[in-house]
């Protein structure tokens, strides 16, 4: 900002006093350590507390493997739905004006303001054994609630606006003349999207997918309502952690939780790397 060479050594009038600076920095690090770092470290320490053998045993348990498999199935549905919807929403909302555009933007924010438990309740009301549609589906041997379809639906519902929220501002910030040039030169909309638009907002795509994946793998409330927590069948990894913990196996719960801590750290690392 300041052209003089002395500016690097002298304190600028908008800099905080060294004492204030040190105090604020110490306080910030303390808050981070007490609320974020320490609890994560305690999970990892608790997981290994009875030794690596016990840890491996908890991870390799058939019910843990089944829970991990179900979580992967959920991700395999939730992520593509999220991406297709997110790209469509960003394309239409960020680039066109149409009646009801503002209402659509508000509608996208709503799922984030609704309790996950209420999201789960919706599926019980629609597809539960006490609902006409649910009773009919159960009679035809395709139960939704207390089965995999309900878990997938609830997760898609909860994570649904994640990619859209990252992509809308990213699409809106792109230079419009490039699009026009591409279209005038004869590119189709699909070519414009896949060759120009998406590559230029790569960071937002990666960030949105990473957050949606973390949330989908970790969703608890909505899934807890529709799953029934049948061990080995309708437990996702977070539900399995709760089952283990409630059964008094806290070391096992910490061991499975450590997998999800690792997944969260990988998510953050991917975002970090994509932003550089």
């Amino acid at each position, binding site marked *: 900002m300041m052209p003089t060479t002395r500016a690097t050594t002298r304190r600028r009038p908008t800099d905080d006093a060294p004492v204030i600076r040190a105090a604020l920095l110490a306080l910030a690090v303390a808050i*981070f350590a007490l609320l974020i770092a320490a609890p994560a470290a305690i999970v990892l320490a608790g997981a290994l507390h009875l030794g690596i053998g016990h840890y491996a045993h908890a991870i390799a348990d058939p019910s843990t493997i089944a829970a991990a498999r179900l979580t992967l199935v959920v991700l395999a549905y939730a992520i593509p739905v999220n991406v297709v919807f997110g790209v*469509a929403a960003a394309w239409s909302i960020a680039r066109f004006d149409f009646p009801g555009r503002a209402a659509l933007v508000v509608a996208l924010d709503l799922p984030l303001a609704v*309790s996950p438990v209420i999201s789960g309740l919706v599926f019980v009301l629609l597809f539960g054994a006490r609902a006409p549609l649910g009773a009919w589906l159960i009679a035809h041997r395709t139960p939704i609630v207390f089965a995999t379809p309900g878990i997938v639906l609830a997760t898609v519902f909860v994570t649904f606006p994640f990619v859209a929220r990252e992509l809308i501002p990213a699409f809106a910030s792109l230079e419009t003349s490039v699009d026009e040039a591409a279209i005038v030169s004869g590119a189709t909309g699909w070519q414009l999207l896949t060759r120009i638009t998406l590559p230029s907002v790569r960071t937002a795509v990666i960030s949105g997918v990473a957050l949606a994946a973390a949330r989908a793998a970790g969703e608890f409330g909505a899934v807890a309502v529709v799953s029934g927590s049948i061990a080995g069948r309708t437990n996702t*990894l977070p539900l399995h952690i709760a089952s283990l913990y409630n059964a008094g196996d806290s070391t096992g719960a910490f061991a499975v939780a450590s997998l999800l801590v690792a997944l969260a750290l990988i998510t953050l690392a991917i975002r970090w790397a994509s932003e550089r």
Partner: protein
Amino acid sequence: MTPHRRRRRALPGLPLTLSITTTGALLFVVTPLATILATATRLSNGSFAAVALNARALAAYRLTFGTALSASALATLSGLLLAWVITRYRFPGRRLLDALIDLPYALPTAVLGLALTAAYTTTSLLGAPLAALGLHVAFTPAGITLALTTLGIPLVVRALTPVLATRPFDAEEASAVLGATRWQTFIRVTLPTITPALLTGAALTFARGIGEYGSVVFIAGNMPFRTEVAPLLIMTRIEEFDDGAATAIATTLLAVSLTLLLVIARLERHAAIRAGLSPRTRQ
């Protein structure tokens, strides 16, 4: 907003993308809300009040809104501090701190709840010293507030970092050169420009806190009338196959949180206009 957006009708793809978006919004936003409301209207007024406004439910709302409000205030203060340090100071580990701030957002809520409970029970590393001071965290409303604050911090930091990083440098410098103290500059110049972002962070934390289940269920203790939050009460009613009661409580919770969100969105616009900024487009 901008004139060139209206010109861009030449761009293809609106019918397809808009129908996908609208179908998604109808399926995943309108249908669920309509289902809840339709179920709620089938209850008579008397039975609605009996299940949604009885003493246990009122205690749950009080706890839910009270802890969400305290957490919103605490997360706003802590988030401001962390965002300030990350954007304004240069120190070793700054980028790592910046990345790890998002951990509570990326972590499954159940894992966060489990971790905080393990850290703050009366016999654990952080809980024992606090218990010696007479402050019991796990299985009390303080524990719920702690979990909601932790969840809120990344929301506040993410709302603030863009505005703190691209602050009106000139205004702050002018204020300082004209003789204002650092504190006066912060209160009179910096704070008004970041107020809309602060309100956004506070509102997001509050909205998240009202509905939170995964982390709270571990740390709360879940005693009716004392540490039972409204989402947990909904869960309990669902497990008792009492869909009517669950829906009535859910409707009450939805009504309050959506009203508050609208009020806060309005406040945000006013703050933005007063600060001389164009109203921030919601992301």
